[in-house]
């Protein structure tokens, strides 16, 4: 219905009043001759109001005569009448035309680049890489060859596994997938030693290849050879190098110390606030304030940006920036201990994830928390033999 109304508005229409003893005859004649009437309403005993298109209106006179009705125009609506009324206002018309042209031209360019996926890839770097490949705010949407840009990005950035670019209106949506590094595999035919990854006490050792150097109960240091790839013959005259392999289960200790702050900062708003407004056009800022600094020593800044856009994907390079500065008073308060301890413990726990925990010792002092995890883990690590 909205579309119909829009079309009617663009074409122009008139609200008319049909007066006569038998207005039904008028309506029938209009229908017969293909004149579309809408919103026909009884206005009085002898009158009916209706809407008729500007083109249809010109054909009404003979119908009115035939049906013995009189037709009066109540109002004219729509674009043709509007422009007719304002045709002498050259600057206004020029402005309206310029607006249309500008809007059309503006929507031919890309103004926004949205990157999704690849959470660990720095956005700045991606944006500069995209800009080098030919996709940056301000390039013509038609000139941006997404396939070529995708290819170029893939060859330039090794860390990308996949990149997809779609252009919608003035927005370029970039979807990236990060490449997951394949784990370093030590070649099977290269000779190597098995060394300890961390300090620990050997619990069990299972050497599938190579010479065992330590046994259960031994204390080992990180880097110490556990299973040797260097094999000597019984006489000691001949040396053979093999690819040592096996699993070494050891008891390890992981110690974490977290400081617990005794005081914490508390910010309270004083009630005084200042706001600053800015208009951003392309990359230029127009400030709506005299350039005075914020005199508050401590403040919270809350910024909001409103982008001028048509729908969701046609974003124009104009935005309104609104910054609000709240003055705050910073006071120190005794920290809530329980919560701080919880937070510290959770952080430590995250770092021993995946290990088998046998024992946990907690030492809490005035200003810190020491957590010692005793774990069972495979400390076998391959290292090349330096001959």
């Amino acid at each position: 219905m909205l579309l119909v109304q829009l079309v009617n508005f663009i074409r122009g229409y008139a609200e008319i009043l049909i007066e006569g003893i038998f207005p039904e005859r008028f309506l029938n004649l209009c229908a017969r001759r293909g004149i579309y009437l809408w919103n026909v309403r009884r206005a009085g005993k002898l009158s009916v109001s209706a809407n008729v298109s500007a083109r249809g209106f010109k054909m009404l006179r003979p119908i009115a005569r035939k049906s013995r009705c009189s037709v009066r125009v109540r109002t004219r609506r729509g674009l043709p009448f509007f422009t007719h009324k304002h045709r002498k206002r050259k600057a206004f018309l020029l402005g309206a035309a310029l607006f249309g042209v500008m809007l059309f031209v503006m929507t031919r360019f890309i103004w926004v680049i949205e990157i999704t996926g690849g959470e660990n890839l720095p956005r700045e770097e991606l944006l500069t890489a995209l800009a080098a490949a030919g996709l940056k705010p301000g390039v013509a949407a038609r000139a941006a060859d997404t396939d070529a840009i995708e290819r170029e990005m893939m060859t330039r950035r090794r860390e990308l596994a996949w990149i997809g670019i779609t252009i919608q209106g003035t927005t370029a949506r970039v979807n990236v997938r990060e490449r997951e590094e394949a784990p370093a595999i030590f070649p099977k035919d290269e000779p190597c030693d098995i060394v300890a990854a961390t300090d620990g006490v050997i619990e069990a050792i299972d050497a599938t290849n190579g010479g065992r150097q330590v046994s259960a109960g031994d204390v080992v240091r990180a880097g110490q050879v556990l299973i040797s790839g260097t094999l000597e013959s019984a006489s000691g005259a001949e040396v053979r190098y093999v690819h040592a392999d096996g699993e070494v289960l050891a008891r390890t200790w992981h110690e974490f110390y977290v400081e617990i702050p005794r005081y914490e900062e508390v910010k309270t708003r004083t009630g005084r606030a200042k706001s600053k407004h800015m208009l951003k056009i392309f990359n230029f800022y127009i400030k709506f304030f005299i350039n005075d600094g914020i005199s508050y020593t401590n403040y919270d800044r809350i910024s909001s940006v409103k982008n001028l856009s048509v729908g969701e994907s046609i974003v124009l390079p104009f935005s309104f920036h609104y910054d609000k500065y709240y003055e705050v008073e910073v006071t120190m308060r005794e920290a809530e201990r329980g919560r701080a301890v919880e937070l510290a413990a959770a952080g430590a726990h995250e770092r021993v994830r995946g290990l088998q925990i046998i024992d946990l010792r907690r030492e809490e002092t005035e200003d810190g928390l020491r957590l010692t995890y005793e774990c069972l883990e495979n400390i076998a690590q391959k290292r090349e033999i330096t001959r």
Partner: protein
Amino acid sequence: MKKSKKERVTELLDLPKEVLLDTPKLTVYSDNQLTVENYGGILEYTDCYIRLKTAGKTIAVSGRGLELRAITDVDVLVEGSISRIDYLTV
């Protein structure tokens, strides 16, 4: 009642009746909108009573605040609070 030749053909071919015959087709939404296709003309229009000529019987619509939202050569769209639709044999 004896069926006409045209009527028998449409029934045989399973054609929609309003296409070949001039049978009026009424579409009613709740009690507030009525479309009459294949009407012959408006006989009477007031805001509480409308009579439409069709190939068969005359259709009379009673109600309150009746408006003709759209009138074209083949159909008419009535809006308002409709209380009854009658088929009159004159």
